[in-house]
């Protein structure tokens, strides 16, 4: 089986600071990967290098059998990599429905033979909002939303691009127990539809129940990668991360 | 050959003197734009305001223009602190600095210029001081005191700012504000207060730069606009917020402009700064000393 995402020896420096140091990572199609690590361990930098927000200096990232090195973020979105941001970044001047319209117009439409009619677009926006339970707020603005609704909008917008891979960057931080379950259920549903998910999270309960596999980053290095229950027992992981 | 060598040496000397003065004009922008990320395009307007105050008091009471500007420091500081407060409440706090904040400073620049035209007219004004006129000669080189005195004053000002920023608690807090607001809060310093102090300082520096300007050349209200390109070119070329970088970039621009004016005519000088700015933005956006 060939991997959907293949990160090969990726290194990223900021001045003298090495944020990522020779990271290797493979993600299989339909897999649910949990990515954990202490603050500042390089998780977000890795996400940014995969999504094209940052360009890695050495090593390479390939997706769906093709290299994406040197491609801008929007081109990678077109290829099928979508992300949600750690701090939600909605388009403040647009209604919820219009927020979802952007990826439909700029990503889905650029792929062949999809969504040409105006009514298709509206129906699709509604469907997506329905999926995250925000259908009754389609015409409202992001400023009217609660924290958890904002996270859902963020995920819905990522999903609107119809990605093959979804990277959820700490989409549960600061939420209550039941809200976390809400978001988890949503991510599981998406995965069951055939979307590969990388979940970056601090909340171990969520990561453990969601992930098929767990990778651990510490100070820009991957120190463990395997079955969740094995990884959390790995002495190096315990020492570096969980035991602190 | 001899004549053009003579010209070149003199052009370089004049450029160095001019460059030191440019550094004084840019110092304020290096603080506001470089460290605080406030795009104060009205800065040259405050410089010209400083020139006119120096002119007004010099002509009416015979006070030395540099002394006037030093006496004016608290006034300009207060003005700067006030402007920052308005800017913070109206734009920065609401996340609207990009569009409206810029329009606000543009409005201020414009209002200052037009108000000065209304009060003083569009004629060139100049100050009187003992050192305007005579020159000293060192070998081939002519050093007019009109340029030398502002150069020395500018370097002194520049040194004082550098010492303030690197040696005092407030100064270091200003540096910190440009790098890490969180760290600053951990130091129990209010970032808004620090930024207000820093912005006040940047405007206070404009008062001195204004006095130096009117010693160097006669001033009319629209002269400020010529400095916008220069000031931001130096600031970017020097690497945003770096004081030593600013000084080097200012001296460089001074020399290049002076050589251009000597060999191609003074009417081309204003284009040099802009060309340099565009080249920097295109090839070395991190500045000369940047990585």
């Amino acid at each position, binding site marked *: 089986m060939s991997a959907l995402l293949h990160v090969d020896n990726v290194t990223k420096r900021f001045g003298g600071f090495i944020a990522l140091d020779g990271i290797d990572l493979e993600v299989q199609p339909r897999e649910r990967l949990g990515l954990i690590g202490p603050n500042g361990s390089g998780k977000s930098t890795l996400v940014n290098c995969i*999504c094209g*927000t940052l360009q890695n200096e050495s090593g390479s990232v390939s997706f769906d059998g093709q290299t994406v090195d040197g491609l801008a973020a929007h081109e990678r979105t*077109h290829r099928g990599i979508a992300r949600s941001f750690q701090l939600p970044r909605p388009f*403040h001047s647009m209604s919820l429905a219009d927020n979802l319209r952007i990826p439909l117009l*700029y990503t889905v439409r650029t792929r062949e033979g999809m969504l040409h009619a105006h009514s298709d677009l509206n129906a699709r926006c509604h469907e997506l909002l329905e999926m995250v339970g925000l259908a009754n707020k389609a015409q409202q603005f992001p400023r009217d939303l609660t924290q958890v609704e904002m996270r859902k909008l963020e995920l819905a917008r990522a999903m609107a691009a119809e990605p093959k891979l979804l990277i959820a960057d700490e989409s549960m931080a600061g939420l209550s127990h039941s809200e976390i379950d809400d978001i988890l259920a949503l991510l599981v549903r998406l995965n069951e539809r055939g979307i590969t998910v990388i979940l970056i999270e601090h909340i171990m309960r969520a990561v453990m129940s969601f992930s098929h596999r767990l990778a651990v980053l510490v100070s820009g290095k991957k120190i463990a990668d395997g079955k969740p229950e094995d990884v959390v027992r790995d002495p190096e992981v315990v020492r570096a991360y969980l035991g602190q | 050959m001899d004549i053009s060598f003579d010209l070149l040496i003199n052009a370089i000397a004049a450029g160095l003197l001019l460059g030191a003065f440019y550094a004084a004009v840019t110092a304020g922008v290096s603080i506001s734009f470089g460290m605080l990320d406030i795009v104060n395009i009205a800065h040259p307007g405050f410089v010209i305001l400083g020139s006119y105050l120096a002119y007004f008091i010099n002509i009416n009471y015979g006070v030395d223009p540099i002394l006037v500007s030093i006496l004016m420091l608290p006034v300009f500081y207060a003005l700067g602190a006030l402007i920052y407060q308005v800017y913070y409440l109206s734009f920065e706090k609401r996340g609207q600095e990009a*569009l409206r904040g810029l329009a606000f400073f543009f*409005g201020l620049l414009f209002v200052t210029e037009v108000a000065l035209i209304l009060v003083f007219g569009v004629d060139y004004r100049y100050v009187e001081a003992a050192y305007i006129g005579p020159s000293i000669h060192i070998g081939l080189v002519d050093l007019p005191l009109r340029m030398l005195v502002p150069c020395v004053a500018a370097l002194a000002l520049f040194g004082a700012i550098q010492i303030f920023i690197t040696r005092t608690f407030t100064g270091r807090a200003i540096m910190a504000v440009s790098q890490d607001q969180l760290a600053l809060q951990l130091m129990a310093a209010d970032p808004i207060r620090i930024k207000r102090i820093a912005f006040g300082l940047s405007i206070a520096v404009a008062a001195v730069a204004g006095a130096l300007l009117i010693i160097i050349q006669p001033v009319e209200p629209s002269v400020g606009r010529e400095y916008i390109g220069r000031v931001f070119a130096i600031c970017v070329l020097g690497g945003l917020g770096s004081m030593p970088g600013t000084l080097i970039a200012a001296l460089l621009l001074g020399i290049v402009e002076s050589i251009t004016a000597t060999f191609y005519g003074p009417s081309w000088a204003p284009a040099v700064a802009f060309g340099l700015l565009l080249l920097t933005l295109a090839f070395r956006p991190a500045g000369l000393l940047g990585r």
Partner: protein
Amino acid sequence: MNTTKFALITIVVGAAVMAFAHWYSIDYLFFASYTILQFIVLATAWNILGGYCGYVNFGSAAFFAMGAYSSVFMHKFYPLPIPALFIVSAIVSGIAGFGMGYLTLRLRGSFFAIATLALAVVLQTLVVNWEYVGGSRGAYIIRPESIEFAGITINYIEYLFGLMLLLTIIALVTARAIERSQLGFGFATIRDDELAAEACGVPTLRVKLIATTISGAFMGMAGAPFPYYIGYLQPSSAFGLEYAVNSIAMPMIGGTTSWVGPLIGAILLGSAQQYATVSISSEVNLLIVGLMLVAFVIIAPNGLIGLVQGWRRAWRKP
């Protein structure tokens, strides 16, 4: 209302204005209204980049002057009718807009603003040193008394007014069409959050370059007939401060989020200035515009349109 319908309505309104002006036929009125129309085009062009994308252009005067000097150049080099000059100016200023954007838009947003500010100074330096287009002394362009058009003789100022009216219609229809198109949504994402826009698949650099090019081209077109209008073009009049400040102040005072804002702002400020130049000095006049700009950005961030919307909302609530 779709774009075709809107275009038809503006054409009807434009024709009515033209017919009224022709019937009234006072030269001064043509001169004054031409200036207001010119400001509507400039304000609308500025707003396509500034209001829709959130990128500030301080160099409106430079783009306007590029249009005007393109006409002067063509006048000496190979005289063309004014409608063709519109196209020449659009190309020259459009390329300049594209170039400025390409050099600075990959960096932080404020660099673009600073570069446009310096652009005016440098272009003025170039023009002052360029003898072919008159240098610092300026260039005379003798305006014909009248022009033959489909067998009828039209007063030349009326002809210029008509052309500017047509350009205004094109600018307004374009601005409104952009607002409702995919491009308009792309512009709005750039104003709101560029990082999120990229993540949604918006090619932000390309979208911004489209904006700087369209905006620059319209500013250039606004300047194309100017030498014929003024008769004697000097660098200081083509690069006049009033263009830079008005093209920012008008949308800011009217409201930047839709095509209506710059239109209202330009009509109000434009007519007020036309009236005031007669009664008070032009400096006082510009001072008032500057103070209004500062006051509006502080007190009414969404301009007159925002104020009206706010009142309507407050009216409905209780």
